[in-house]
């Protein structure tokens, strides 16, 4: 069976709550069957609204959402067959774990025997085999989270939506749950639409990430592409760390461009600049700039060290470079030969390919 490319499809969806402001603008999004897509963005960017429209708790103001080629705007939530994991788990506090999981099966009028089988299987999947008779209040946050995941999956929905499900957990638990959810997704192959504002979570778990800002999808691509090749300065800024220079394009030729800054000039990769004289923001990832580069790099600058922060596996170095005093470098702690001391001047080099000239901020 071939996978449908547009299993979930947002087609020109707009959403407004008050008739004045659009919280979602012209959203077009195709999600493949079995894919793990994350909607990532700052709060208020419209990502949760999109999820709620897909779940059926909000109606699109304009446009249509298709699930397996069927328009679903007029189908009430309980008939959509979409599982959902809520931010605060939304476990029914008056029911045991078993009853919580049996709830979607009972309303589907399954036989008691089938229900027991399915619930046992779902609980085993999230490794909560012995917890069937506990009340949700007796479980830890992580366990409640697993119950919520199991409940959203137990009735074999075509799509599972997760609305910042790990937001309330502590850091270590959150990380282990990320892997757990990822593994569950891989093993059962359900389509997952995941909403988060935590980029680390998005990068770890997703097949593709849709970065939301201001009601629009800024970029939809795989995690590595998103990090390495951001298409605009918002994405570059939002995902990972980023050094920026604001300037003006002074020359464009064969895939490179020269950007004139207030002090000095850098050679960059023209991504969204087309002509000379355009304003631009050049973005360079901290790990792409090297200290005392051995190979010849087409950008070579001197910078003064202003701050050194030890981070265990690496050291962060803040430099003043070309008038930007927030230029960050990440130096692996294995390279001890370098002369990193406060106030020292050091040579910094990077390839023009890694300096992406994007839209101005």
């Amino acid at each position: 069976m071939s996978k449908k490319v547009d299993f979930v499809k947002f087609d020109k969806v707009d959403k407004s709550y008050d008739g004045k402001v659009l919280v979602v603008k012209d959203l077009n999004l195709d999600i493949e069957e079995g894919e793990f897509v994350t909607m990532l963005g700052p709060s208020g960017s419209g990502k949760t609204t999109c999820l709620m429209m897909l779940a059926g708790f909000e109606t699109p103001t304009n446009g249509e959402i298709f699930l397996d080629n069927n328009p679903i705007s007029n189908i009430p939530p309980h008939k959509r067959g979409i599982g959902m994991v809520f931010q605060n788990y939304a476990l029914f506090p008056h029911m045991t774990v078993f009853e919580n999981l049996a709830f979607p099966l009972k309303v589907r009028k399954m036989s008691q025997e089938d229900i027991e089988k399915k619930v046992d299987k779902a609980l085993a999947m999230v490794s909560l085999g012995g917890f069937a008779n506990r009340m949700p209040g007796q479980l830890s946050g992580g366990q409640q989270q697993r119950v919520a995941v199991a409940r959203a999956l137990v009735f074999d929905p075509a799509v599972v939506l997760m609305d910042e499900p790990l937001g309330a957990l502590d850091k270590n638990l959150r990380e282990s749950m990320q892997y757990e959810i990822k593994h569950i997704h891989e093993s059962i192959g359900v389509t997952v639409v995941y909403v988060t504002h935590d980029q680390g979570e998005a990068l770890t778990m997703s097949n593709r990430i849709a970065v939301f800002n201001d009601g629009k999808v800024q970029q939809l691509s795989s995690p590595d592409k998103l990090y390495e090749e951001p298409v605009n300065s918002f994405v570059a800024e939002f995902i990972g760390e980023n050094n920026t220079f604001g300037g003006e394009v002074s020359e464009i030729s064969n895939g490179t461009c020269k950007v004139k800054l207030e002090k000095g000039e850098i050679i960059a990769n023209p991504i969204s600049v087309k002509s000379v004289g355009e304003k631009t923001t050049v973005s360079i990832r901290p790990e792409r700039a090297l200290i005392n580069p051995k190979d010849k790099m087409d950008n070579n600058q001197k910078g003064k060290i202003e701050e050194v922060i030890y981070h265990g596996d690496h050291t962060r170095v803040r430099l003043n470079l070309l008038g930007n005093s927030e230029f960050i470098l990440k130096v692996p702690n294995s390279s001890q030969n370098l002369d990193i001391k406060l106030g020292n001047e050091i040579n910094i080099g990077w390839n023009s390919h890694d300096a992406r000239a994007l839209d101005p901020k």
Partner: protein
Amino acid sequence: MSSDTGKILTTDGIPLEESLKQAEKKNKIKAFLLVAPLLLFLIITYMIPIGDMFSRSIDDKMVTNMLPKTYKAMEKWDGKELPPEEVFEAFYLDYKILVKNKTAGKLQTQLNYEKNGFKSVLKKLARKQKKFEEGNYKEQIMKVHKRWRNVEYWRAIKRRAPSYTYSKYLKGIDMYSNEDGKIVQVSEDRRIHRILWIRTVEVAFFVTLFCFLMAYPIAHLLATLPMKYSNLLMICVLLPFWTSLLVRTASWMILLQQQGIVNDFFVWTGLVADDNRPEMMYNKTGTYVAMTQILLPFMVLPLYSVMKTISPSLMRAGKSLGATPAVAFFKVYFPLTIPGIGAGCLLVFILAIGYYITPALVGGASGTLISNQIAYHMKSTLDWSFASAMGLMLLTGVLVIYWIYNKLVGVDNIKLG
């Protein structure tokens, strides 16, 4: 370090328990002092009056104190035949003092309660006893009136010997202790209290039901509406709360009377004929309408405070799992509101069962409740002991309801906020 005896000691060598007590002592005293004024207030305004009510309701010392010698002499009498000479003598001596002090009237009334026709017998004795000679009082007394030969009258006196009685409680449920000491019902045309008890429970039950049916949607709306509107609605709910009870009841009288606004409206719309205006006041209807409106906030507030804590995502979760809105409501939302329902219903029922002003004003004859009867005995008949007895019966009834509720739902499930 623990010592040999197993007692844990603090670093200074004082036993840990003692040290803890010492350390907590100040806090305990402080806490007690903080609640002391309220405790004192409750004892003075609540415990003492209830205790007084109870002693008043069973108090029957009056006759006992008026005939001390008689009752002492009667101790040996078995009550089967006429009492011996000593009893007659003692009674004569007691009665003589009463007549002299001009308090014989009270005894006559009290004994007449016990046995009809006692009053005239005693009055005659009061007149004749002045000429009594010393000795052989039995003969002399029996000569005054032939009823003194009837053992029934002497038994009636003996029945009043104990200084405590439960006869007021029996009266409260239309029963009494007859001449043979058996507990029987009063004649059918005099059974008024039982009707009142049943009506009180019935009114309280239906008022609670109506309040619940009306308050549930309001509370739900209050809990789910955006702040802007819910505040306004909350004020609408509370506004009657801030108005005097009397004013509210009076406004219902204006609305509901036969020439009132509601009836005028019915006539105007043609629902009823002008000469056939329905009576909506001075009967149970009026009591129901006014009491439901007045007690509504007591149902709305606990429901609201419980509903406020129910996350809206629970209903959404229910729906996303495939439950229709109705199923999601009854399986998910409703069970979570039960603590609020319990609190609201208990509150309204207990308030309704002892309600006084509203039924007194709009209830009329068929809409008055037991509390009105209690007030009647307090103010008009001045039978305070009977009023106390009925008040205590009401209190006991409420406690029983509370106990049943605790058994069924569990008091710890009540949530007022």
